[in-house]
């Protein structure tokens, strides 16, 4: 039988090794060549830490632990096997689960210690539970919107920010009262219920286009709440994992907010989707040039350099695999085909890269926005598929445009621009795109999947396929 001292030592050592492995895991994520090793390091660290914890001397009841671990695995496996287009909602759901875990543990710890909770501990516990609760409902709402169970359209009303921040402020005030008077145990439910409400209210005004920022922000919150839980339990491994996750979410939300040209305070307070599209310009009747698949194929086939700019519209019409066929066909003819990816092209950071990788498009052909923008001037054809606002030159030139200042892909610098689009409707932001009326732009009207398919047939020589 192990002494208590020995078991504590073993647990501490497993946590220490797990910490090293977690940091290495993230370090190896820096390149696709080493990234899978990163996953293995993370898995091994996790296994060690969980195994070590099971040695904890205080554990008297293994039945429920085993049942819970098995049930968690049963739920986890299908969540690990969702389609790549569903990864954003899966991620949001997992933020909710993480936050649920943290909130439940925090709540149990409070009632175990109440009414004598030391002030500093109450302060971090309050933070843990407030962040956890609001992340839980916020993430569920985000997942619902992404899965289109809930309406994607932002719902706004007057004084919304005031109401939302008011709810959160009351929760914080209650937490402060609990820090000063931990014996007022009856107040505790408020620091769960109010943030739960805030989480719902926070997501109501947010539209689909803002989801990348929201998911990153919720990721950061989930990490910070886990770190706070580490403070409460005096568990350094948890503090470190939470801090890493918090930092990651923070960096991604800053990236996303820059890509959407939103101020940082906008991110912190979650006040997105406020700007209602300033009069959606109505029916524009300016002339556009349209082209058929044959013409498009002829131009693409004669080009030296092509940059394809995919947007979420491409994923919606499931055109990725047709786009890969186009990539193959053009590459075979000696055309240099690459992809220009805007940071918010998908529904979460990096989503578009995953969707293209799934379609077997080599990742060394995927260019970040800045690299692509350096290349457009030497590009024969920029082919825009299902993207709109991220190619809108008004963001550079028209100070009155709601998206003015947003970094865009400068497709208009290419010699020819082709845009595959269903019709002339405006994009997410409801803003007209002057790109479509440019002399060098050819509009290819139709469904992305079938249109790209027709181009592929033309390029490969019209033989049925």
């Amino acid at each position, binding site marked *: 039988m192990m002494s208590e001292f020995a078991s504590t030592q073993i647990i501490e050592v497993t946590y220490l090794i797990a910490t090293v492995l*977690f*940091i290495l*895991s*993230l*370090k190896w994520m*820096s390149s*696709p060549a080493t*990234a*899978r090793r990163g*996953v293995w390091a*993370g*898995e091994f*660290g996790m296994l060690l830490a*969980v195994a070590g*914890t*099971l040695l*904890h001397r205080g*554990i008297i009841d*293994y039945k*429920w*632990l085993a049942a*819970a671990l098995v*049930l*968690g695995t049963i*739920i*986890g496996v299908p*969540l*690990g096997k*969702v389609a790549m287009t569903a990864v954003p909602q*899966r991620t949001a759901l*997992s933020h909710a*689960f*993480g936050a*649920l*875990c943290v909130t439940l*543990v925090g709540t*149990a710890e409070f*009632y175990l210690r109440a009414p004598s909770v*030391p002030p500093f501990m109450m302060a*971090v516990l309050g933070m843990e539970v407030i962040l956890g609760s609001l992340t839980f409902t916020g993430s569920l709402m985000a997942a619902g919107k992404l899965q289109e169970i809930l309406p994607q359209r932002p719902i706004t009303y007057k004084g919304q920010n005031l109401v939302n921040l008011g709810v959160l402020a009351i929760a914080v005030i209650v937490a402060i009262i609990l820090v000063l008077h931990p014996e007022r145990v009856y107040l505790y439910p408020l620091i769960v219920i109010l943030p739960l409400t805030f989480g719902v209210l926070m997501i109501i005004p947010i539209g689909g286009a803002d989801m990348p920022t929201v998911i990153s922000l919720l990721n950061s919150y989930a990490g910070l709440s*886990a770190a706070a839980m580490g*403070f409460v*339990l*005096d*568990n*350094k491994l*948890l503090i470190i994992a939470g801090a*890493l*996750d*918090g*930092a990651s979410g923070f*960096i*991604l939300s800053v990236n996303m907010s820059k890509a959407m040209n939103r101020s940082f305070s906008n991110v912190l307070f979650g006040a997105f989707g406020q700007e209602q599209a300033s009069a959606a310009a109505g029916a524009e009747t300016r002339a556009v040039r349209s082209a058929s698949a044959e013409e498009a194929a002829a131009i693409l086939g004669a080009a030296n350099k092509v940059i394809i700019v995919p947007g979420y519209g491409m994923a919606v019409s499931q055109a990725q695999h047709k786009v890969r066929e186009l990539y193959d066909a053009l590459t075979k003819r000696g055309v240099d085909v690459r992809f220009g*990816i805007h940071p918010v092209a998908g529904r*979460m950071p*990096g989503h578009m*890269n995953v969707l293209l990788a799934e379609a077997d498009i*080599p*990742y060394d052909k995927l260019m*970040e926005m800045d690299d692509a923008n350096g290349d457009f001037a030497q590009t024969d054809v920029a082919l825009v598929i299902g993207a709109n606002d991220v190619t809108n030159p008004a963001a550079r030139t028209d100070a009155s445009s709601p998206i003015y200042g947003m970094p865009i892909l400068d497709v208009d610098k290419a010699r020819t621009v082709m845009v595959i689009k269903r019709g002339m409707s405006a994009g997410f932001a409801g803003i007209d795109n002057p790109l479509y009326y440019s002399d060098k732009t050819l509009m290819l009207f139709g469904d992305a999947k079938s249109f790209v398919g027709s181009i592929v047939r033309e390029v490969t020589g019209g033989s049925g396929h």
Partner: protein
Amino acid sequence: MKLDFLTSLYVFMLAGFIGFEVIRRVSPLLHTPLMSLTNALDAIAVVGAIILAGEHKTNFSAILGTIAIVAATSNIVGGFLITDRMLKMFKVSGPKKS
């Protein structure tokens, strides 16, 4: 007790800096798998839940702990699975086996 919290704060601060430095270097190409990976790692919170449920100090704490284990474990399993699935898809161009 006070000193423990101070040590924890140091740990948090240093881990935050490491996080920034390490994650800044992650290529935007991999931001989606990065998020699902950090999500899985974050579910290390399961160790707190295991102790809570295992110690069974009160029925209330044991029930909350058990539900927390389920939630965290599903994140661990699902998070690692999907991260690996995504990373497997990232290939370089070159001779293709079809």
